[in-house]
């Protein structure tokens, strides 16, 4: 499996994500945001966490207009896999690949802690390494992780089984306790918590490993 990780000015989880993919057996290329095309033969494009462009205007808004983001959107539109974590999730909502928006945490504080989550039955390869209903712990580290969609869209997401992860104990005010959602074709995941920070015993937990292993084992060519 070949993954490309996009690096923006202010990305800070790009190398952690590279390690997580490589340990699971993927080949990883790093792609600078000014590149207007992705390397040939990429199966998965990952958008890492961080503070791209200093969170100016809105989190992820400037990154979503980067040259490489047009390639990212084309990759997704033709059925390619995309994983956006934390700031990457914010970027994906700003490109319109995923619905909703992430606003300031309801408690206004930056939250940096281990967070218990519940894996939902989203029928996607991203959650294939877990059982529906399984509880996992991934770290969170965000100031703007409060996921918001209107009531109609929320009903649609639930009806279509597109909620991939929920918070067991909602830390940030997200509607429906939503921590991660997938696209209609199940190939794009946006997730606020950080699975790549839970892939080594030294991280304090390894619950994230199953996501990367499932991705390396289970991707279907676009």
């Amino acid at each position, binding site marked *: 499996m070949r993954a490309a990780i996009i690096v923006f000015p202010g990305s800070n989880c790009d190398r952690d994500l590279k390690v997580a993919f490589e340990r699971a057996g993927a080949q990883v290329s790093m792609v600078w945001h000014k590149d207007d095309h992705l390397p040939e033969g990429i199966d998965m494009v990952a958008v890492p966490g961080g503070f791209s462009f200093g969170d100016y205007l809105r989190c992820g*808004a400037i990154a979503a207009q980067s040259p490489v983001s047009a390639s990212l959107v084309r990759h997704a539109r033709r059925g390619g896999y995309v994983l956006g974590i934390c700031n990457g999730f914010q970027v994906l909502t700003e490109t319109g690949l995923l619905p909703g928006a992430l606003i300031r*945490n309801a408690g206004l504080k930056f939250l940096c802690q281990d967070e218990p989550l519940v894996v939902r039955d989203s029928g996607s390869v991203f959650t294939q390494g877990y059982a529906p209903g399984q509880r996992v712990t991934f770290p969170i580290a965000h100031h703007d992780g409060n996921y918001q969609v209107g009531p109609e869209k929320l009903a649609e997401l639930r009806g279509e089984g597109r909620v991939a992860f929920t918070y067991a104990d909602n830390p940030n005010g997200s509607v429906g306790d939503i921590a991660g959602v997938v696209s209609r074709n199940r190939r794009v995941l946006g997730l606020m918590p950080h699975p790549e920070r839970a892939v080594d015993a030294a991280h304090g937990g390894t619950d994230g490993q199953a996501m990367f292993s499932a991705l390396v084992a289970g991707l279907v060519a676009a």
Partner: protein
Amino acid sequence: MKVRVDVMLKAGVLDPQGEAVRAALGNLGFEGVEKVRQGKLIELELAEDDPEVARARATEMADKLLANAVIESYRVTVL
């Protein structure tokens, strides 16, 4: 030509920052502040003399970047 774009969270979208400001005003002794909504004011200087063209261009910019239609609304004012 100067154009101002006011961006506000849509009615119904929770505004935790506005709420924090409201609480702080109460702490300072300002009574009767029933609601605070916090937004952004963006001023553009456009190389354009026709106010209607300037308005149309700023509107396009707001749709594409300056506001996020999922949570925000905006108002364009040609100054």
